[in-house]
């Protein structure tokens, strides 16, 4: 069992990304509004106010999608679907995706009752 974390920089893709989650078999996720470190520093910390130009091209806000994945093969399927929708994540400003092992969980709805 894994915790899948996807920081999606281009929020316009959120709907398509979630469609890919469902298609791949992810039965639930939590979506958080988040923001990049560069935006916060340049706009909220006066010492760094002159670095607004340095973060040009970066997206100030993003979405962080958290989901607990029971079957690890879902992750590969999802990655393939996402590559097709949002592009290769190695491109700057697209997003970051990673997994962490989950060794205990409580509160997950059984799969056949989700969606």
């Amino acid at each position, binding site marked *: 069992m894994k915790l899948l974390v996807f920081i999606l920089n281009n929020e316009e893709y959120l709907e398509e990304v979630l469609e890919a989650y469902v298609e791949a078999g992810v039965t639930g996720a939590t979506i958080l509004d988040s923001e990049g470190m560069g935006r916060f*520093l340049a706009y909220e910390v*006066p*010492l*760094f*106010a*002159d*670095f607004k130009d*340095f973060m040009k091209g970066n997206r100030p806000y993003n979405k962080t999608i958290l989901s607990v994945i029971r079957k690890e093969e879902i992750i590969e399927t999802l990655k393939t679907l996402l590559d097709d929708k949002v592009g290769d994540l190695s491109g700057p400003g697209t997003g970051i995706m990673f997994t962490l092992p989950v060794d205990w969980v409580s509160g997950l709805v059984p799969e056949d009752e989700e969606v």
Partner: protein
Amino acid sequence: MGGLCTRLLPECVLLDPLQQDKERVIRQLVDRLASSHSITDPDTLFEQVMEREKLGSTCLGFGCAVPHARTDSAGTTVIAAARLNPPVSMDAPDGEPVSLVFLMAGPEKSAALHLRLLSKLARLLHSDSLRAQLCEASTAEDFHQIICSRDD
């Protein structure tokens, strides 16, 4: 990471210059940088630092300020420092006068390094003990050495 110690030369440290205000302090620090490093156009650097000040305060609180600019006048990122006694008003958000000023200038292309050094200076200056040591330094060399001792 290091980097502060080698970019702040003892000859670029001013201890307790008399009759100061914000502009005079910055002007003197720019002139020190110009005399010790290859700053091609100190007048422009001074204007750029003052222009940057209009964007928002570079005061960190605790009586510290880090005015800075990225400029093509600088071939590499360099630092000058002043200790002010009595402290000088620099329009700090906390309203406190400033007793420690670090002026940083670096080339436009070195934005990432500039950010790292600014962040490191900000972290170091949050230390009560470091500020106390700097305020008690008896010579520019001592002041420089104190910075070097924390520049890991």
